[in-house]
Protein backbone atom coordinates (compact mmCIF):
# COMPACT_ATOMS: atom_id res chain seq x y z
CA UNK A 1 0.00 0.00 0.00
CA UNK A 2 1.22 3.49 -0.85
CA UNK A 3 1.02 5.72 2.21
CA UNK A 4 1.92 8.87 0.29
CA UNK A 5 5.32 9.18 1.92
CA UNK A 6 3.83 9.69 5.37
CA UNK A 7 5.91 8.21 8.16
CA UNK A 8 3.08 8.27 10.70
CA UNK A 9 -0.27 6.63 9.95
CA UNK A 10 -2.75 5.13 12.42
CA UNK A 11 -3.58 1.43 12.30
CA UNK A 12 -7.26 2.37 12.00
CA UNK A 13 -6.33 4.16 8.75
CA UNK A 14 -4.66 1.00 7.54
CA UNK A 15 -7.87 -0.86 8.29
CA UNK A 16 -10.06 1.71 6.53
CA UNK A 17 -7.93 1.68 3.38
CA UNK A 18 -8.09 -2.10 3.28
CA UNK A 19 -11.89 -2.01 3.55
CA UNK A 20 -11.96 0.27 0.55
CA UNK A 21 -9.84 -2.14 -1.45
CA UNK A 22 -11.88 -5.14 -0.28
CA UNK A 23 -15.00 -3.35 -1.44
CA UNK A 24 -13.62 -3.49 -4.97
CA UNK A 25 -12.29 -7.01 -4.89
CA UNK A 26 -14.90 -8.86 -2.85
CA UNK A 27 -18.54 -8.08 -3.51
CA UNK A 28 -19.59 -10.01 -0.40
CA UNK A 29 -17.78 -7.66 1.98
CA UNK A 30 -20.22 -5.60 4.05
CA UNK A 31 -19.44 -3.08 6.78
CA UNK A 32 -21.50 -2.43 9.91
CA UNK A 33 -20.81 0.52 12.14
CA UNK A 34 -22.24 1.58 15.50
CA UNK A 35 -22.42 5.36 15.10
CA UNK A 36 -18.65 5.80 14.98
CA UNK A 37 -18.18 5.48 11.26
CA UNK A 38 -15.46 8.05 10.75
CA UNK A 39 -13.71 7.20 14.03
CA UNK A 40 -13.36 3.57 12.95
CA UNK A 41 -12.41 4.67 9.43
CA UNK A 42 -15.37 2.98 7.78
CA UNK A 43 -16.45 6.23 6.12
CA UNK A 44 -14.31 5.67 3.03
CA UNK A 45 -16.08 2.37 2.42
CA UNK A 46 -19.44 3.94 3.20
CA UNK A 47 -18.96 6.68 0.60
CA UNK A 48 -17.92 4.28 -2.12
CA UNK A 49 -20.24 1.35 -1.35
CA UNK A 50 -23.30 2.78 0.40
CA UNK A 51 -25.44 -0.23 -0.51
CA UNK A 52 -23.08 -2.50 1.42
CA UNK A 53 -22.80 -0.30 4.47
CA UNK A 54 -25.10 -0.77 7.46
CA UNK A 55 -25.51 2.11 9.86
CA UNK A 56 -26.28 0.27 13.04
CA UNK A 57 -26.88 2.99 15.60
CA UNK A 58 -25.40 2.80 19.09
CA UNK A 59 -26.42 -0.83 19.37
CA UNK A 60 -23.29 -2.97 19.55
CA UNK A 61 -24.93 -6.19 20.69
CA UNK A 62 -27.42 -6.09 17.84
CA UNK A 63 -24.66 -5.16 15.41
CA UNK A 64 -22.63 -8.25 16.31
CA UNK A 65 -25.74 -10.44 15.99
CA UNK A 66 -26.65 -8.92 12.64
CA UNK A 67 -23.08 -9.46 11.43
CA UNK A 68 -23.48 -13.12 12.39
CA UNK A 69 -26.73 -13.33 10.45
CA UNK A 70 -25.09 -11.77 7.42
CA UNK A 71 -22.20 -14.23 7.61
CA UNK A 72 -24.69 -17.10 7.84
CA UNK A 73 -26.21 -15.77 4.63
CA UNK A 74 -22.88 -15.71 2.82
CA UNK A 75 -21.61 -12.18 3.45
CA UNK A 76 -18.19 -11.22 4.80
CA UNK A 77 -19.07 -8.68 7.46
CA UNK A 78 -16.75 -6.25 9.24
CA UNK A 79 -18.41 -4.96 12.41
CA UNK A 80 -16.68 -1.85 13.66
CA UNK A 81 -16.76 0.16 16.84
CA UNK A 82 -14.42 1.07 19.68
CA UNK A 83 -12.63 -1.92 21.16
CA UNK A 84 -14.14 -1.36 24.59
CA UNK A 85 -17.63 -1.91 23.19
CA UNK A 86 -16.82 -4.50 20.53
CA UNK A 87 -15.10 -6.78 23.00
CA UNK A 88 -16.80 -5.81 26.25
CA UNK A 89 -20.36 -4.65 25.69
CA UNK A 90 -21.03 -7.34 23.10
CA UNK A 91 -18.91 -10.14 24.58
CA UNK A 92 -21.70 -12.70 24.99
CA UNK A 93 -22.90 -11.96 21.46
CA UNK A 94 -19.36 -12.52 20.19
CA UNK A 95 -19.14 -15.70 22.24
CA UNK A 96 -22.35 -17.36 21.06
CA UNK A 97 -23.41 -15.70 17.82
CA UNK A 98 -19.90 -15.48 16.37
CA UNK A 99 -17.29 -17.73 18.00
CA UNK A 100 -19.49 -20.73 18.84
CA UNK A 101 -20.88 -20.74 15.31
CA UNK A 102 -17.34 -20.18 13.97
CA UNK A 103 -18.49 -17.63 11.39
CA UNK A 104 -16.52 -15.36 9.10
CA UNK A 105 -17.35 -12.32 11.18
CA UNK A 106 -14.56 -9.78 11.38
CA UNK A 107 -14.65 -7.44 14.34
CA UNK A 108 -12.64 -4.24 14.22
CA UNK A 109 -12.11 -2.60 17.58
CA UNK A 110 -10.37 0.73 17.24
CA UNK A 111 -9.14 2.92 20.07
CA UNK A 112 -7.23 0.13 21.77
CA UNK A 113 -4.83 1.07 24.56
CA UNK A 114 -3.85 4.12 26.54
CA UNK A 115 -2.69 5.93 23.41
CA UNK A 116 -6.34 6.89 22.88
CA UNK A 117 -5.31 9.71 25.17
CA UNK A 118 -7.65 12.46 26.27
CA UNK A 119 -10.93 10.50 26.22
CA UNK A 120 -9.73 8.62 29.28
CA UNK A 121 -10.40 5.24 30.81
CA UNK A 122 -13.88 4.58 29.39
CA UNK A 123 -12.53 4.68 25.86
CA UNK A 124 -9.05 3.24 26.35
CA UNK A 125 -9.74 -0.46 26.05
CA UNK A 126 -7.12 -2.57 27.79
CA UNK A 127 -8.88 -5.92 27.86
CA UNK A 128 -9.65 -6.99 24.27
CA UNK A 129 -6.86 -9.52 23.85
CA UNK A 130 -7.87 -11.18 27.11
CA UNK A 131 -11.58 -11.21 26.33
CA UNK A 132 -11.23 -12.36 22.75
CA UNK A 133 -8.42 -14.88 22.99
CA UNK A 134 -10.30 -16.89 25.60
CA UNK A 135 -12.91 -17.72 22.94
CA UNK A 136 -12.44 -20.89 20.86
CA UNK A 137 -12.30 -20.35 17.06
CA UNK A 138 -11.36 -16.67 17.50
CA UNK A 139 -8.22 -15.18 15.97
CA UNK A 140 -6.83 -12.03 17.62
CA UNK A 141 -4.57 -9.64 15.74
CA UNK A 142 -2.82 -6.53 17.06
CA UNK A 143 -1.18 -4.83 14.07
CA UNK A 144 1.96 -2.82 14.77
CA UNK A 145 1.64 -0.26 12.01
CA UNK A 146 -0.78 0.83 9.30
CA UNK A 147 0.68 -1.55 6.73
CA UNK A 148 0.21 -4.50 9.09
CA UNK A 149 -3.34 -3.35 9.78
CA UNK A 150 -3.96 -3.13 6.03
CA UNK A 151 -2.65 -6.64 5.42
CA UNK A 152 -4.36 -8.08 8.50
CA UNK A 153 -7.72 -6.73 7.31
CA UNK A 154 -7.32 -8.25 3.88
CA UNK A 155 -6.19 -11.57 5.27
CA UNK A 156 -9.04 -11.62 7.80
CA UNK A 157 -11.60 -11.36 5.00
CA UNK A 158 -10.14 -14.50 3.44
CA UNK A 159 -10.29 -16.56 6.63
CA UNK A 160 -13.59 -18.45 7.06
CA UNK A 161 -13.40 -17.91 10.82
CA UNK A 162 -13.92 -15.02 13.24
CA UNK A 163 -11.13 -12.46 13.56
CA UNK A 164 -10.76 -9.65 16.07
CA UNK A 165 -8.58 -6.73 14.95
CA UNK A 166 -7.24 -4.49 17.71
CA UNK A 167 -6.55 -1.12 16.18
CA UNK A 168 -5.16 2.16 17.47
CA UNK A 169 -6.42 5.69 17.22
CA UNK A 170 -3.18 7.63 17.09
CA UNK A 171 -1.06 8.15 14.01
CA UNK A 172 1.88 5.90 14.71
CA UNK A 173 5.29 5.56 13.06
CA UNK A 174 5.49 3.07 10.19
CA UNK A 175 8.03 0.24 10.30
CA UNK A 176 11.08 1.03 8.17
CA UNK A 177 11.65 -2.53 7.05
CA UNK A 178 8.63 -4.72 7.18
CA UNK A 179 9.70 -8.36 7.31
CA UNK A 180 6.33 -9.42 5.84
CA UNK A 181 3.05 -10.02 7.58
CA UNK A 182 1.04 -13.21 7.87
CA UNK A 183 -1.67 -13.69 10.49
CA UNK A 184 -0.44 -16.35 12.91
CA UNK A 185 3.28 -16.04 12.07
CA UNK A 186 5.33 -13.91 14.47
CA UNK A 187 7.87 -11.54 12.88
CA UNK A 188 11.44 -11.38 14.15
CA UNK A 189 12.17 -7.67 13.84
CA UNK A 190 15.66 -7.66 15.37
CA UNK A 191 18.01 -10.64 15.83
CA UNK A 192 19.63 -11.15 19.23
CA UNK A 193 20.95 -13.73 21.71
CA UNK A 194 20.89 -12.32 25.24
CA UNK A 195 17.17 -11.95 25.75
CA UNK A 196 13.95 -11.76 23.77
CA UNK A 197 11.49 -8.91 23.82
CA UNK A 198 8.06 -10.05 22.64
CA UNK A 199 5.87 -7.13 21.74
CA UNK A 200 2.82 -6.10 19.72
CA UNK A 201 0.96 -3.03 18.51
CA UNK A 202 2.33 0.44 19.11
CA UNK A 203 4.98 -0.94 21.42
CA UNK A 204 6.90 -2.70 18.64
CA UNK A 205 8.93 0.33 17.59
CA UNK A 206 9.55 1.30 21.21
CA UNK A 207 10.96 -2.16 21.83
CA UNK A 208 13.14 -1.89 18.74
CA UNK A 209 14.49 1.44 19.98
CA UNK A 210 15.15 -0.17 23.36
CA UNK A 211 17.06 -2.96 21.61
CA UNK A 212 19.29 -0.33 20.02
CA UNK A 213 19.98 1.19 23.44
CA UNK A 214 20.71 -2.25 24.88
CA UNK A 215 23.13 -2.95 22.02
CA UNK A 216 25.15 0.06 23.14
CA UNK A 217 25.48 -1.71 26.50
CA UNK A 218 26.57 -4.89 24.76
CA UNK A 219 23.25 -6.59 25.33
CA UNK A 220 21.89 -8.28 22.26
CA UNK A 221 18.08 -8.27 22.38
CA UNK A 222 15.91 -10.19 19.93
CA UNK A 223 12.66 -8.39 19.18
CA UNK A 224 9.66 -10.47 18.16
CA UNK A 225 6.55 -8.78 16.88
CA UNK A 226 3.78 -11.08 18.09
CA UNK A 227 1.02 -9.36 16.14
CA UNK A 228 -1.16 -12.44 16.46
CA UNK A 229 -1.62 -13.35 20.13
CA UNK A 230 -4.01 -16.10 18.97
CA UNK A 231 -3.38 -18.55 17.39
CA UNK A 232 0.04 -18.08 18.92
CA UNK A 233 3.26 -18.89 17.05
CA UNK A 234 4.64 -21.38 19.59
CA UNK A 235 7.57 -22.42 17.48
CA UNK A 236 9.09 -18.95 17.18
CA UNK A 237 8.59 -18.30 20.90
CA UNK A 238 10.04 -21.60 22.13
CA UNK A 239 13.01 -21.19 19.81
CA UNK A 240 13.62 -17.69 21.14
CA UNK A 241 13.35 -18.77 24.77
CA UNK A 242 15.74 -21.64 24.11
CA UNK A 243 18.29 -19.48 22.33
CA UNK A 244 18.14 -16.37 24.52
CA UNK A 245 17.15 -17.73 27.94
CA UNK A 246 14.98 -14.79 29.05
CA UNK A 247 11.75 -13.26 27.73
CA UNK A 248 10.35 -9.80 28.32
CA UNK A 249 6.87 -9.02 27.02
CA UNK A 250 5.60 -5.51 26.40
CA UNK A 251 2.05 -4.48 25.51
CA UNK A 252 -0.25 -1.51 25.73
CA UNK A 253 -2.86 -3.72 27.34
CA UNK A 254 -3.65 -5.42 30.66
CA UNK A 255 -1.03 -8.04 31.38
CA UNK A 256 -3.74 -10.20 32.98
CA UNK A 257 -4.70 -12.51 30.17
CA UNK A 258 -3.07 -10.35 27.53
CA UNK A 259 -0.38 -11.05 24.95
CA UNK A 260 2.30 -11.49 27.65
CA UNK A 261 0.14 -13.99 29.49
CA UNK A 262 -0.34 -15.88 26.24
CA UNK A 263 3.45 -16.06 25.81
CA UNK A 264 3.87 -17.18 29.42
CA UNK A 265 1.31 -19.95 28.90
CA UNK A 266 3.36 -21.32 26.02
CA UNK A 267 6.74 -21.04 27.72
CA UNK A 268 5.76 -22.34 31.14
CA UNK A 269 4.71 -25.61 29.51
CA UNK A 270 7.49 -25.89 26.96
CA UNK A 271 10.56 -23.90 27.89
CA UNK A 272 10.35 -22.08 31.21
CA UNK A 273 12.82 -19.18 31.37
CA UNK A 274 12.91 -16.02 33.51
CA UNK A 275 10.17 -13.67 32.28
CA UNK A 276 8.89 -10.20 32.92
CA UNK A 277 5.51 -8.97 31.73
CA UNK A 278 5.24 -5.24 31.05
CA UNK A 279 1.88 -3.62 30.43
CA UNK A 280 -1.06 -2.28 32.36
CA UNK A 281 -1.22 -3.84 35.81
CA UNK A 282 -4.47 -3.60 37.72
CA UNK A 283 -5.20 -0.05 36.67
CA UNK A 284 -7.57 1.78 34.38
CA UNK A 285 -6.17 4.38 32.04
CA UNK A 286 -6.49 8.14 32.62
CA UNK A 287 -6.83 11.19 30.42
CA UNK A 288 -3.70 12.77 29.03
CA UNK A 289 -1.58 13.10 25.94
CA UNK A 290 -0.51 9.72 24.59
CA UNK A 291 3.20 10.27 25.04
CA UNK A 292 2.74 11.49 28.60
CA UNK A 293 0.58 8.44 29.31
CA UNK A 294 3.24 6.05 28.02
CA UNK A 295 5.64 7.70 30.41
CA UNK A 296 3.12 7.72 33.30
CA UNK A 297 2.47 4.01 32.90
CA UNK A 298 6.17 3.18 32.38
CA UNK A 299 5.73 2.00 28.82
CA UNK A 300 8.61 3.73 27.06
CA UNK A 301 11.94 2.69 25.65
CA UNK A 302 13.70 3.74 28.87
CA UNK A 303 11.63 1.40 31.06
CA UNK A 304 11.98 -1.44 28.58
CA UNK A 305 15.77 -1.07 28.78
CA UNK A 306 15.62 -1.03 32.58
CA UNK A 307 13.45 -4.14 32.81
CA UNK A 308 15.60 -5.94 30.22
CA UNK A 309 18.72 -5.36 32.30
CA UNK A 310 16.99 -6.54 35.49
CA UNK A 311 15.71 -9.61 33.68
CA UNK A 312 19.11 -10.57 32.32
CA UNK A 313 20.48 -10.47 35.86
CA UNK A 314 18.00 -13.23 36.74
CA UNK A 315 19.28 -15.62 34.07
Amino acid at each position, binding site marked *: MDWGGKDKVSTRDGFGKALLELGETNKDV*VVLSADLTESVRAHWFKEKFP*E*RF*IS*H*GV*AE*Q*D*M*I*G*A*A*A*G*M*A*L*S*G*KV*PFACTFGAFASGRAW*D*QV*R*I*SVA*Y*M*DLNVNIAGTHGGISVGADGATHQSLEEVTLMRVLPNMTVVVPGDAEEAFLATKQAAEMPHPVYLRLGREAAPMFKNNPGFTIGKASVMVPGDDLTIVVCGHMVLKAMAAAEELAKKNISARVINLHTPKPIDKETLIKAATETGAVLTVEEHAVAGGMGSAVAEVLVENRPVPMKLMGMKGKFGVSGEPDKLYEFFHLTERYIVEEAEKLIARK
Partner: protein
Amino acid sequence: MFKRFNERWEVKKITDITELKKKAIDLRRDTLKMLTKAGSGHTGGSLSVIEIMALLYYQRMNIDNRDPRRKDRDKFILSKGHACPALYAILADLDFFPREELWTLRKLGSRLQGHPQLGLPGVEISSGSLGQGLSISVGMALADRMDDLNTRIYCLMGDGETNEGQVWEAAMTAAHYKLASLCGIIDCNKLQIDGRCCEVMNPGAHAKKWESFRWHVIEADGHDFKELQNAFDEAAAVLDRPQMIIAHTVKGKGISFIENQVAWHGIAPKKDELNKAFAELDKQRKALDG
Protein backbone atom coordinates in the same frame (compact mmCIF):
# COMPACT_ATOMS: atom_id res chain seq x y z
CA MET B 1 -46.63 -38.20 5.77
CA PHE B 2 -44.42 -36.45 3.24
CA LYS B 3 -40.75 -37.21 3.19
CA ARG B 4 -39.02 -35.22 0.50
CA PHE B 5 -39.22 -31.77 -0.92
CA ASN B 6 -38.29 -31.19 -4.53
CA GLU B 7 -36.26 -28.46 -6.17
CA ARG B 8 -39.21 -26.23 -6.86
CA TRP B 9 -40.40 -26.13 -3.28
CA GLU B 10 -43.43 -28.18 -4.24
CA VAL B 11 -43.74 -29.18 -0.65
CA LYS B 12 -46.52 -31.55 0.10
CA LYS B 13 -48.13 -29.27 2.59
CA ILE B 14 -50.48 -30.25 5.35
CA THR B 15 -53.41 -27.97 4.69
CA ASP B 16 -56.03 -29.89 6.60
CA ILE B 17 -56.38 -28.59 10.14
CA THR B 18 -57.28 -31.96 11.62
CA GLU B 19 -54.13 -33.41 10.07
CA LEU B 20 -52.10 -30.57 11.58
CA LYS B 21 -53.64 -31.27 14.96
CA LYS B 22 -52.65 -34.92 14.64
CA LYS B 23 -49.15 -33.85 13.72
CA ALA B 24 -48.99 -31.65 16.80
CA ILE B 25 -49.94 -34.60 18.99
CA ASP B 26 -47.19 -36.74 17.42
CA LEU B 27 -44.68 -33.95 17.92
CA ARG B 28 -45.66 -33.58 21.59
CA ARG B 29 -45.17 -37.31 22.00
CA ASP B 30 -41.65 -37.22 20.50
CA THR B 31 -40.74 -34.10 22.43
CA LEU B 32 -41.73 -35.64 25.74
CA LYS B 33 -40.06 -38.96 24.99
CA MET B 34 -36.80 -37.20 24.09
CA LEU B 35 -36.89 -35.24 27.32
CA THR B 36 -37.58 -38.31 29.42
CA LYS B 37 -34.78 -40.25 27.77
CA ALA B 38 -32.43 -37.31 28.27
CA GLY B 39 -33.46 -36.98 31.91
CA SER B 40 -33.35 -33.20 31.74
CA GLY B 41 -34.41 -30.30 29.54
CA HIS B 42 -37.11 -27.71 29.09
CA THR B 43 -40.57 -29.23 28.94
CA GLY B 44 -42.94 -26.30 29.40
CA GLY B 45 -41.49 -23.98 26.77
CA SER B 46 -41.10 -26.82 24.26
CA LEU B 47 -44.76 -27.74 24.46
CA SER B 48 -46.01 -24.16 24.08
CA VAL B 49 -44.38 -23.66 20.65
CA ILE B 50 -45.57 -26.85 18.93
CA GLU B 51 -48.49 -25.43 16.90
CA ILE B 52 -46.54 -22.32 15.84
CA MET B 53 -43.61 -24.36 14.60
CA ALA B 54 -45.77 -27.09 13.07
CA LEU B 55 -47.65 -24.55 11.01
CA LEU B 56 -44.46 -22.97 9.75
CA TYR B 57 -42.64 -26.21 8.96
CA TYR B 58 -45.54 -28.24 7.56
CA GLN B 59 -47.36 -25.50 5.74
CA ARG B 60 -45.47 -22.24 5.25
CA MET B 61 -41.74 -22.49 4.80
CA ASN B 62 -39.74 -23.30 1.69
CA ILE B 63 -37.06 -25.61 2.98
CA ASP B 64 -35.08 -28.44 1.47
CA ASN B 65 -34.00 -31.43 3.52
CA ARG B 66 -31.56 -32.55 0.81
CA ASP B 67 -29.88 -29.15 0.75
CA PRO B 68 -30.58 -27.63 4.17
CA ARG B 69 -28.42 -24.55 3.51
CA ARG B 70 -29.89 -23.79 0.09
CA LYS B 71 -29.44 -20.08 -0.41
CA ASP B 72 -33.05 -19.25 -1.26
CA ARG B 73 -34.63 -21.15 1.63
CA ASP B 74 -36.88 -19.59 4.24
CA LYS B 75 -35.33 -19.60 7.68
CA PHE B 76 -36.70 -20.45 11.09
CA ILE B 77 -34.63 -18.94 13.89
CA LEU B 78 -35.26 -20.51 17.28
CA SER B 79 -34.12 -17.68 19.50
CA LYS B 80 -35.50 -19.37 22.62
CA GLY B 81 -33.03 -22.20 22.11
CA HIS B 82 -34.15 -24.11 25.18
CA ALA B 83 -37.25 -25.20 23.22
CA CYS B 84 -35.03 -27.25 20.90
CA PRO B 85 -36.67 -30.62 21.62
CA ALA B 86 -39.66 -29.38 19.61
CA LEU B 87 -37.37 -28.28 16.78
CA TYR B 88 -35.49 -31.59 16.77
CA ALA B 89 -38.77 -33.55 16.68
CA ILE B 90 -39.88 -31.62 13.59
CA LEU B 91 -36.54 -31.79 11.77
CA ALA B 92 -36.31 -35.55 12.32
CA ASP B 93 -39.88 -36.02 11.12
CA LEU B 94 -38.97 -34.04 8.00
CA ASP B 95 -35.96 -36.30 7.40
CA PHE B 96 -33.28 -33.69 8.02
CA PHE B 97 -31.54 -36.35 10.11
CA PRO B 98 -32.37 -39.90 11.18
CA ARG B 99 -35.17 -40.23 13.66
CA GLU B 100 -33.11 -42.56 15.88
CA GLU B 101 -30.90 -39.61 16.75
CA LEU B 102 -33.76 -38.04 18.67
CA TRP B 103 -33.12 -40.41 21.54
CA THR B 104 -29.51 -39.21 21.90
CA LEU B 105 -30.57 -35.73 23.05
CA ARG B 106 -28.12 -34.23 25.57
CA LYS B 107 -25.87 -37.32 25.52
CA LEU B 108 -22.12 -37.22 24.98
CA GLY B 109 -21.31 -37.37 21.28
CA SER B 110 -24.80 -36.39 20.14
CA ARG B 111 -25.48 -33.75 17.51
CA LEU B 112 -28.59 -32.94 19.51
CA GLN B 113 -26.99 -30.62 22.03
CA GLY B 114 -28.88 -29.36 25.06
CA HIS B 115 -29.26 -26.10 23.17
CA PRO B 116 -29.16 -26.07 19.36
CA GLN B 117 -25.79 -26.02 17.66
CA LEU B 118 -25.14 -25.06 14.08
CA GLY B 119 -24.12 -28.18 12.18
CA LEU B 120 -27.15 -30.37 12.80
CA PRO B 121 -28.96 -30.28 9.43
CA GLY B 122 -31.89 -27.89 9.57
CA VAL B 123 -30.62 -25.93 12.56
CA GLU B 124 -30.09 -22.32 11.44
CA ILE B 125 -28.26 -20.88 14.44
CA SER B 126 -26.67 -21.87 17.71
CA SER B 127 -28.85 -20.41 20.42
CA GLY B 128 -29.37 -20.71 24.13
CA SER B 129 -28.13 -17.35 25.27
CA LEU B 130 -31.46 -15.55 25.13
CA GLY B 131 -31.99 -12.37 23.16
CA GLN B 132 -29.66 -12.99 20.23
CA GLY B 133 -31.89 -14.57 17.58
CA LEU B 134 -33.69 -11.46 16.41
CA SER B 135 -30.41 -9.67 15.67
CA ILE B 136 -29.20 -12.63 13.65
CA SER B 137 -32.52 -12.64 11.80
CA VAL B 138 -32.06 -8.96 11.03
CA GLY B 139 -28.64 -9.73 9.53
CA MET B 140 -30.10 -12.54 7.43
CA ALA B 141 -32.91 -10.34 6.17
CA LEU B 142 -30.43 -7.59 5.26
CA ALA B 143 -28.13 -10.02 3.46
CA ASP B 144 -30.93 -11.76 1.56
CA ARG B 145 -32.28 -8.40 0.44
CA MET B 146 -28.84 -7.39 -0.87
CA ASP B 147 -28.83 -10.63 -2.85
CA ASP B 148 -32.38 -10.05 -4.18
CA LEU B 149 -33.57 -13.27 -2.58
CA ASN B 150 -37.25 -13.51 -1.93
CA THR B 151 -37.00 -15.33 1.41
CA ARG B 152 -38.95 -15.15 4.66
CA ILE B 153 -37.26 -15.21 8.01
CA TYR B 154 -39.19 -16.31 11.07
CA CYS B 155 -37.80 -15.69 14.54
CA LEU B 156 -39.41 -17.28 17.59
CA MET B 157 -38.77 -15.72 20.99
CA GLY B 158 -40.12 -16.28 24.48
CA ASP B 159 -42.00 -13.57 26.33
CA GLY B 160 -39.47 -13.70 29.16
CA GLU B 161 -36.74 -13.43 26.54
CA THR B 162 -37.97 -9.98 25.57
CA ASN B 163 -36.58 -8.74 28.91
CA GLU B 164 -33.26 -8.67 27.06
CA GLY B 165 -32.21 -5.23 25.85
CA GLN B 166 -30.71 -6.66 22.66
CA VAL B 167 -34.20 -7.63 21.50
CA TRP B 168 -35.17 -3.97 21.45
CA GLU B 169 -32.03 -2.97 19.62
CA ALA B 170 -32.98 -5.48 16.94
CA ALA B 171 -36.58 -4.24 16.99
CA MET B 172 -35.28 -0.80 16.13
CA THR B 173 -32.92 -2.00 13.43
CA ALA B 174 -35.51 -4.16 11.69
CA ALA B 175 -37.96 -1.28 11.54
CA HIS B 176 -35.29 1.22 10.49
CA TYR B 177 -34.42 -0.97 7.51
CA LYS B 178 -38.09 -1.83 6.83
CA LEU B 179 -37.33 -5.54 6.85
CA ALA B 180 -40.64 -6.82 5.55
CA SER B 181 -39.22 -10.31 5.03
CA LEU B 182 -38.81 -10.65 8.79
CA CYS B 183 -41.64 -12.08 10.87
CA GLY B 184 -41.12 -12.39 14.61
CA ILE B 185 -43.24 -14.52 16.88
CA ILE B 186 -43.46 -14.17 20.64
CA ASP B 187 -44.48 -17.31 22.45
CA CYS B 188 -46.51 -15.49 25.05
CA ASN B 189 -46.99 -18.21 27.63
CA LYS B 190 -46.86 -15.71 30.49
CA LEU B 191 -44.30 -17.69 32.51
CA GLN B 192 -40.53 -17.57 32.78
CA ILE B 193 -38.17 -19.27 35.27
CA ASP B 194 -38.73 -17.34 38.47
CA GLY B 195 -42.47 -17.13 38.05
CA ARG B 196 -45.11 -15.23 36.12
CA CYS B 197 -43.70 -12.73 33.63
CA CYS B 198 -45.79 -9.94 35.12
CA GLU B 199 -44.16 -10.56 38.50
CA VAL B 200 -40.59 -11.29 37.38
CA MET B 201 -40.38 -8.29 35.04
CA ASN B 202 -43.64 -6.84 33.91
CA PRO B 203 -43.37 -6.27 30.18
CA GLY B 204 -46.39 -3.97 29.97
CA ALA B 205 -48.29 -4.16 26.72
CA HIS B 206 -46.32 -6.22 24.18
CA ALA B 207 -48.46 -5.13 21.23
CA LYS B 208 -48.16 -1.41 21.89
CA LYS B 209 -44.42 -1.69 22.35
CA TRP B 210 -43.84 -3.38 19.01
CA GLU B 211 -46.28 -1.04 17.28
CA SER B 212 -44.42 1.95 18.62
CA PHE B 213 -41.22 0.42 17.24
CA ARG B 214 -43.00 0.49 13.85
CA TRP B 215 -43.71 -3.23 13.50
CA HIS B 216 -46.98 -4.61 12.17
CA VAL B 217 -48.46 -6.42 15.17
CA ILE B 218 -50.89 -9.32 15.05
CA GLU B 219 -52.26 -11.16 18.07
CA ALA B 220 -53.37 -14.76 17.84
CA ASP B 221 -54.12 -17.86 19.86
CA GLY B 222 -50.86 -19.74 19.49
CA HIS B 223 -52.51 -23.13 19.69
CA ASP B 224 -55.30 -22.47 17.17
CA PHE B 225 -54.15 -23.40 13.67
CA LYS B 226 -56.90 -21.39 12.03
CA GLU B 227 -55.93 -18.22 13.91
CA LEU B 228 -52.26 -18.86 13.26
CA GLN B 229 -52.91 -19.32 9.54
CA ASN B 230 -54.76 -16.02 9.42
CA ALA B 231 -51.98 -14.33 11.36
CA PHE B 232 -49.25 -15.59 9.04
CA ASP B 233 -51.38 -14.68 6.00
CA GLU B 234 -51.81 -11.16 7.31
CA ALA B 235 -48.09 -10.92 8.08
CA ALA B 236 -47.07 -12.10 4.62
CA ALA B 237 -49.16 -9.35 3.03
CA VAL B 238 -47.27 -6.58 4.85
CA LEU B 239 -44.65 -5.15 2.52
CA ASP B 240 -43.26 -2.10 4.27
CA ARG B 241 -42.25 -3.25 7.75
CA PRO B 242 -41.39 -6.26 9.89
CA GLN B 243 -44.26 -8.13 11.51
CA MET B 244 -44.64 -9.44 15.04
CA ILE B 245 -47.11 -12.17 15.86
CA ILE B 246 -47.90 -12.18 19.53
CA ALA B 247 -49.00 -15.75 20.06
CA HIS B 248 -50.93 -16.34 23.26
CA THR B 249 -49.99 -19.77 24.46
CA VAL B 250 -50.04 -22.05 27.48
CA LYS B 251 -46.74 -23.19 28.88
CA GLY B 252 -46.75 -27.00 28.95
CA LYS B 253 -49.73 -27.09 26.56
CA GLY B 254 -51.43 -30.42 26.03
CA ILE B 255 -50.52 -32.21 29.25
CA SER B 256 -52.82 -31.35 32.14
CA PHE B 257 -50.31 -31.67 34.95
CA ILE B 258 -47.62 -29.71 33.09
CA GLU B 259 -49.78 -26.85 31.84
CA ASN B 260 -49.19 -23.48 33.48
CA GLN B 261 -46.76 -24.84 36.05
CA VAL B 262 -43.69 -22.69 36.69
CA ALA B 263 -41.91 -25.74 38.07
CA TRP B 264 -42.11 -27.49 34.70
CA HIS B 265 -39.87 -24.92 32.98
CA GLY B 266 -36.60 -26.80 33.23
CA ILE B 267 -37.35 -30.39 34.16
CA ALA B 268 -38.10 -33.53 32.16
CA PRO B 269 -40.93 -36.01 32.77
CA LYS B 270 -40.01 -39.14 34.65
CA LYS B 271 -41.03 -42.49 33.19
CA ASP B 272 -44.38 -42.71 34.99
CA GLU B 273 -45.16 -39.09 34.14
CA LEU B 274 -44.37 -39.82 30.50
CA ASN B 275 -46.83 -42.69 30.53
CA LYS B 276 -49.50 -40.48 32.02
CA ALA B 277 -48.77 -37.84 29.38
CA PHE B 278 -48.95 -40.42 26.58
CA ALA B 279 -52.35 -41.55 27.88
CA GLU B 280 -53.61 -37.96 27.64
CA LEU B 281 -52.22 -37.62 24.11
CA ASP B 282 -53.87 -40.92 23.11
CA LYS B 283 -57.20 -39.54 24.28
CA GLN B 284 -56.72 -36.35 22.29
CA ARG B 285 -55.86 -38.40 19.26
CA LYS B 286 -58.97 -40.59 19.63
CA ALA B 287 -61.12 -37.50 19.88
CA LEU B 288 -59.71 -36.27 16.57
CA ASP B 289 -60.23 -39.62 14.88
CA GLY B 290 -63.81 -39.16 16.01
